[in-house]
């Protein structure tokens, strides 16, 4: 029943308590705010940094060098673009030093559109992240996965990007996290900071259990024979919804794959499904030129060209310089439920 924001917070708490996390930091990450999306409220090791993304990533690297276990935040992925060089360095430390130095850092950052964020709170990061060798990149679409992926990210001794679909941060899971109290209101009373003065507030952490979503493992969230739909993050629920509607209204059924890990990705599951259906659609909201979906499509074409019965497809955001504030911009440049439904319909019905 937790939201993604709560799930990540509880995973970080678990990390502080059991996995040696020493520092959770970033702009407005510490008290009093606990993160612009409440993700870091009440955490013991959370602290506020200067407004300096390069300092955040550099310091995280330094902490990791010295044996600390840092989780840092870039407040919005839109503000990570002055620090790609340091991401590249973090990703190459082990390779460059031939195994002398690991770089166990987690960088979490909200990504994607859907909160009327205009030009600078709507960017995507997965395609950029996928281009930085040496990193792992994960992106949950629900709270349970967020919990399990964050714990995996902390345990992994390599740099990991935890991309959080910002429009889903408040979305509640239908399932309970292991250790979470059954009553959502009780959870909220325990771990959500009160409105107003918080100086004396302390969270009461539920006794959470370890739960891991292995990096590189996708989840098959719907099963069917009329096509393979690959997505993750914010658009995954739309794919599921469209698949369910098409099942109900037209009897089409799809394999819907929640990729969860952008890199490494679960090629085995993709491959198996494509061989079965011969039809594939990859859906994300990032801009459409040199988009990570195009990589997946290339893999599919490389290895399953002769298994495809129809043209393999992508559904992505338009190649434009930003998401406009007026909703007419977003609606017409980022895939919407209607677009997803239409694409799935076509996937199922296009004559082979």
């Amino acid at each position, binding site marked *: 029943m937790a939201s993604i924001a709560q799930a990540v917070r509880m995973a970080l708490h678990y990390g502080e308590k059991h996995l040696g996390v020493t520092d959770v930091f970033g*702009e407005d990450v510490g008290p009093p705010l606990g993160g612009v999306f409440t993700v870091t409220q009440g955490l013991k090791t959370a602290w506020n940094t200067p*407004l*300096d993304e390069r300092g955040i990533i550099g310091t995280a690297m330094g902490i990791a060098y010295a044996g600390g276990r840092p989780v840092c935040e870039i407040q919005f992925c839109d503000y990570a673009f002055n620090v790609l060089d340091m991401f590249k360095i973090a990703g190459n430390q082990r390779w460059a030093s031939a195994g002398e130095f690991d770089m166990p850092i987690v960088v979490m950052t909200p990504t994607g559109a859907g909160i009327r964020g205009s*030009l600078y709170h709507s960017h995507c990061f997965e395609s950029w992240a996928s281009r930085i060798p040496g990193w792992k990149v994960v992106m949950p679409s629900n709270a349970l996965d967020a919990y399990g992926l964050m714990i995996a990210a902390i345990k992994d001794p390599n740099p990991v990007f935890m991309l959080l679909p910002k429009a889903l941060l408040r979305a509640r899971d239908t399932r309970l996290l292991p250790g979470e109290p059954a009553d959502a209101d009780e959870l909220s009373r325990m771990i959500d900071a009160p409105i107003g003065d918080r100086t004396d507030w302390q969270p009461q952490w539920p006794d959470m259990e370890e739960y891991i979503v292995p990096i590189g493992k996708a989840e098959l969230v719907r099963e069917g024979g009329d096509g393979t739909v690959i997505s993750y993050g914010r658009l995954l629920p739309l794919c599921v919804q469209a698949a369910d509607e098409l099942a109900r209204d037209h009897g089409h059924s799809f394999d819907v794959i929640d990729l969860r890990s952008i890199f490494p990705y679960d090629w085995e599951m993709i491959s198996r499904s494509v061989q079965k259906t011969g039809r594939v659609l990859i859906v994300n909201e990032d801009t459409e030129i040199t988009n990570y979906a195009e990589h997946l499509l290339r893999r599919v074409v490389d290895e399953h060209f002769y298994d495809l019965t129809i043209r393999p497809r992508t559904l992505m955001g338009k*190649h*434009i310089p930003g998401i*406009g504030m007026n*909703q007419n*911009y977003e*609606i017409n440049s980022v895939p919407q439920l209607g677009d997803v439904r239409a694409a799935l319909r076509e996937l199922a019905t296009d004559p082979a």
Partner: protein
Amino acid sequence: MPELNEDSSDLDSGSPRRTTRTAAPAVIRSGREVISAELALTLFRQMIRTRVLEERSIKMSKSGEAYFWIGGPGEEAFNVCLGLQVHRGHGPAFDYLHLHYRNAGVMLAMGMPMINHVRQLAMRQTDPHSRGRNFVGHYAVKAWNVVPVSSVIEVQFAMAPGTALIQKRHGGEGITMVVGGEAGTAEGDFETCLNWSTRPGQELPVLMLVTNNRYGISTDLHTVCAEKLVSDRAAPYGIRAESVDGNDPVLVWNALDRAMRYCRRERKPFLLEAMVSRLHGHSSSSGAQRVWGETDVLATFEQKLIDCGAIDSVAVQAMKDEAKAEADAAVVAAMKEPEPTREDVYRFTYAPSEVDAVYPKDYTGLPGAK
């Protein structure tokens, strides 16, 4: 418009006591500094207009007529004093402005009609700054050298040396002004501006302006930064600098006047820090509620003007009413204007180019796309 009077903004709260003085003063003083009473009233009127527009904007963000608000309540003295001293025009003979997102007062004082602010806030197709694309306060006015405001903190400080370089070559008195908050000075771009403005023999007429409200969103400056004053950062570069109480219009006016005069004449940089209040928190994302602990420059200036007999409370009320009427009219008009359409998505991506075989006019989607 009945709502107008029902709108109990904090402008109306705390009715200042009337003065007993009779003769209107010629000048308004603060310590040893003065401005003319006439100027003081002009400032005051523009500050009221600015505050009213901001309050109306906050209301819109809460009513659903708009979605996001960010702005400068508490910075009116600084913004208005700045806007009124700009050499406004197009090209390097005039001033360039690299603003951030709390500068409505600068724009109003320069002459921007309220409706252009509202059009952006209400995401109208008629928004001249961004066609309904950008957040409010993200102005762009080519005719006035107001370069596009970006949400990305501090990047404007890396761009400012460029406009100033052209101005230095051009000669004359045009200068570049660049504005940002104090938290943002932690980004390297602030240092870039200090450094690039002082290359030996290439000193640039850049007026670096920092509005220090002591917060970056929720983070208290004193918890993350050791500097006593942001203006101390100028010293290693031999840049002149000053810090001024931004809640005192007399001091701010004169500090800006001195700083601008120096940049205009000496063709060298200056760093001016203004200590300001943040009266509605960071933005609508943090609730935009009125904060009561901080000095309200409008209230204190009003009291000062009344105390010294420069204005009376009837005239004050008239100014406020007038400003509210202006703001309301702007909102009513803007809300009737069209929204951007699907066809707007690609527009104005590329300038027409005679050397481009694919996009000679504008962007039309992927190359060769039907």
